[in-house]
């Protein structure tokens, strides 16, 4: 850990929580400050929120640990894995806030929106550092409650309300399942701590096997809901379509990062005793997730719905890293999520820019002829789409490569073959959007908002996708290093 000196005495284990504390305190202060910001200047709330995230990011980078540091009697861990995934979550949240600024100008612009995003982020930060099911549950609920509200943020819009209600009901159900599963595992092992539970389950006698399995199934179901694995993905398209687009972007990236980090931690520490069982379940779900995501996306006409199913498909690919269960697999997940974050947020930035007088810019038809009117955006969008399809010289190829090679290493050749075939299916609906952009004639005039910040976001993400596509080594190296102390 870097040496940070404070002007006042600071308990050792608290310092590992510094990023969380920064976010919590600044978010609450922002809530108060926001009262004094007038309706027209709400943009400043957004800027302040981004600054709060920047402060937390600086703290995380400063403290970036060389190994695993435990705090609060093993409730909380600060290791490179957590630090790296927190940085991803910061990036996702900050970019989503940037995307919101322009979008919110046409909406009921209130400051709580940004504060809720900060709290959701705080919940995710807790999730990735939790080594105890209670902390995990706290973090998860903090995240979920904030996002329920954000999804239903457009109070006057029917589909936003519908989305929020659906998401809330199914989310509450899944939280219940998660808790139910945890209680079974607790009943057998007598501990909420991941590692202690893992040791206890190892030595548990066979009479408790049924209870462990029951707990495992409910636990996995709850977690699967959070990262939209089939068959627990049902909420995803509705929630994605109904939510304000920046929130869709946020939801499709940040909670997935947090969710997969949690799954990896639990798999390594809490469940090694039932590895065969959870692997079987995960393989089954991965097979289903890849198929459902990639096939259902073909039928979509609304790009937000299409991206919802595409997320499901990508989650299926990421699961291969968990199924591989080796260092390459976990590093591959981080590579995948990092690259997925960049390309998805870049794509959503363009979708948000498409919104114009009376047109939501969400139907695939709305993109027809984009290349004639706005060649720059068209090029960036083409790059994101080919990248999502996993075509080389773009980063998406290396994302897939990183998890696929780990799965081959673990001997899951057939599963990788299956995944590769579905990635070819997936390429179809991505290149179909390219068809709208490049091959079709424009039907309506385009009238883009010219927010510099948004343009910069699109440009930076597009350049990053090409740069990482040509030279992915630094990212792969960082992700590999992030596993120090984890396994």
């Amino acid at each position, binding site marked *: 850990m870097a040496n940070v000196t404070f002007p006042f005495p600071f308990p050792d284990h608290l310092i590992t929580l510094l990023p969380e504390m920064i976010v919590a305190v600044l978010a609450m202060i922002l809530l108060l400050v926001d009262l004094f910001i007038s309706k027209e200047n709400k943009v400043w709330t957004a800027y302040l929120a981004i600054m709060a995230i920047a402060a937390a990011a600086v703290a995380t980078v400063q403290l970036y640990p060389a190994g695993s540091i435990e705090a609060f009697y093993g409730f909380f861990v600060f290791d490179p894995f957590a630090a790296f995934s927190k940085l991803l979550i910061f990036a996702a949240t900050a970019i989503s806030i940037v995307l919101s600024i322009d979008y919110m100008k046409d909406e009921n612009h209130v400051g709580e929106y940004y504060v809720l995003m900060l709290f959701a982020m705080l919940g995710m930060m807790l999730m990735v550092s939790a080594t105890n099911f209670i902390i995990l549950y706290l973090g998860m609920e903090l995240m979920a409650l904030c996002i329920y509200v954000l999804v239903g943020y457009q109070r006057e819009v029917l589909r936003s309300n519908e989305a929020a209600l659906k998401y809330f009901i199914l989310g509450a159900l899944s939280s219940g399942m998660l808790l139910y599963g945890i209680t079974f595992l607790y009943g057998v092992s007598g501990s909420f701590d991941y590692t202690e539970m893992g040791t206890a389950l190892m030595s548990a006698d066979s009479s408790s096997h049924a209870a462990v399995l029951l707990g495992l199934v409910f636990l996995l179901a709850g977690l699967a809901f959070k990262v939209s694995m089939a068959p627990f993905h049902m909420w995803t398209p509705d929630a994605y379509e109904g939510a304000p687009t920046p929130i869709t972007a946020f939801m499709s990236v940040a909670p997935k990062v947090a969710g997969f980090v949690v799954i990896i931690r639990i798999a390594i520490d809490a469940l090694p005793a039932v590895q065969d069982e959870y692997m079987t379940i995960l393989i089954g779900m991965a097979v289903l997730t890849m198929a459902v995501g990639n096939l259902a996306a073909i039928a979509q006409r609304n790009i937000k719905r299409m991206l919802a199913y595409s997320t499901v498909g990508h989650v299926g690919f990421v699961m291969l890293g968990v199924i591989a269960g080796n260092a390459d697999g976990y590093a591959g997940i981080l590579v995948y999520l990092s690259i997925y974050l960049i390309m998805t947020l870049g794509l959503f930035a363009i979708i948000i820019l498409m919104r114009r007088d009376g047109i939501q810019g969400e139907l695939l038809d709305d993109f027809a002829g984009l*290349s004639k009117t706005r*060649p720059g955006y068209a090029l960036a969008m083409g790059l994101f789409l*080919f990248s999502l399809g996993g*075509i*080389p*010289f773009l980063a998406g*190829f290396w994302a897939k*490569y990183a998890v*696929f*090679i780990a799965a*081959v*290493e673990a001997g899951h*050749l057939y599963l*990788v*073959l299956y995944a*590769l*075939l579905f*990635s*070819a299916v997936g*390429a*179809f609906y991505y*290149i*179909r959007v*390219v*068809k709208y952009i*490049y*091959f079709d004639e424009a039907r309506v005039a385009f009238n883009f908002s010219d927010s510099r910040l948004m343009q910069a976001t699109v440009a930076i993400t597009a350049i990053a996708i090409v740069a990482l596509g040509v*030279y*992915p*080594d630094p990212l*792969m*190296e960082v992700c*590999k290093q992030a596993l120090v102390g984890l396994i």
Partner: protein
Amino acid sequence: MDLNNVLDFPILSLSIFLPTLGALIIWLFVRGDNAVRWASLIVAVATFLVTLPLALNFDTTTAHMQFEEFHHWIPAFNINYHLGLDGISMPFIVLTSFLTVVCIISAWQCIQTRVKEYMIAFLILETTLIGVFSALDAILFYFFWEALLIPMYLIIGIWGGKNRVYATIKFFLYTLAGSVLMLIAVLAMYFEAGHTFSMLDFMDYPFDFTWQFWIWIAFFIAFAVKVPMWPVHTWLPDAHTEAPTAGSVILAGILLKLGAYGFLRFSLPMLPDASQYFVPLMIGLSLVAIVYISLVAMMQTDMKRLIAYSSIAHMGFVTLGTFMFTQAALEGAIIGMISHGFVAAALFLCVGVMYDRLHTREIGDYGGVVNVMPVFAAVMLFFCMANVALPGASAFVGEIMVLIGTFEAAPTHLGISAKWIAIAATTSVVLSACYTLWMYKRVIMGDLVKDSVKSMQDMTIREFGYFVPLIILTLWLGFYPLPVLDFLHVSVSHLIDQVSTSKLDAAAALLQAVPAAEAAHH
């Protein structure tokens, strides 16, 4: 590691990235359609000039890789930026850079919309093609192999004919689905061969038969789609027909060779036993391509479709020669590919010349063109004859060598003598004459009855300009193929050594050595 590079200069990297660099400069700094055309031409010519030293400094006495370059790319997975050429890949690189120049000149008039994007797409396509032919690392190979789908998808989709969207999506998905199998084969080989992606290591590593069997099938599907072989050829007529003229030229001239090149680079040297095992399959499919596809070609009413089917039939010859494993047949196959690069490219350009005037590719819409375009009729006659493989044309050299090589090949376990295979393949000479000359008769000969045809003007100097080098090269390769054969001899006989040396004994020895070594270790 010792790098064999006589020039002491990263000339392959320069050839690969010069077009991209040029595309970048054009994108950022060049304005105006004509300026873009000239700038692209300058970049393409410069690239061609850069690739010429590859041929001039080529050492024909060794089968080793030449002009090598090596850099670590992704050390975590031992992926390296390793480039190099041997006699098999070198001619294709020069062919690529040459045909790109021709393509850019041919697009001068017929591409009027989005000229800049078109030229950029073409230059990036050139980068990926040269990259495929010079890669010696399997992931690098795959990287370029897949990347070329993006510019090609856009070229067909944006500047193609009426049915272009269907054609380009079909092309994209067919080739993508084929190549993912190659990726998984490469990943599996990485672990089997001890954490390396080096194609040279793969050639040396003794894979046992089961491995070879499955990996061969995966490669086969990937390459067969690209060649394309019957029955996965159906994307090609659509893609060819709908692509703009220059797109068809590069498709026929270079892209079709990638599949056959894959067989030569991966299947034969890395998986010799499986390659031997699958000879009957390859012969069967090649003969179907030669005979059946030729018959299909005869029935086409669209000129580009007809030439597309003729390309498939000619590629049948190439795959037949590849899997005969004799010096003459393999060299004939490669000469056939190069020659097809000139002849098919020129035929597509001929159709392009007519299409630019009447905007139709239907044979029935023409007739009597010779009366208004005598010079053009002569040029087209020349290339039609070359397509029929008349002696004196380059295609003749390729076909006769494949036939000779097939004739002298050892009897295969088909149960019939290789002579019968050669005889069956010879029908192509008759059939190709049927479909090519029949098309020529219907389009060029006859009386001038259609008013639209009466208004056609003969070729301009620029159009004539890009046929001249193609005519010279076709004749040169037809009369004096020795210089090209010199490039091939050593590399091809090395390849034949590789494919005739079974890896099974070494694999069995390795299998026994591993437990012994482990026992000694304990």
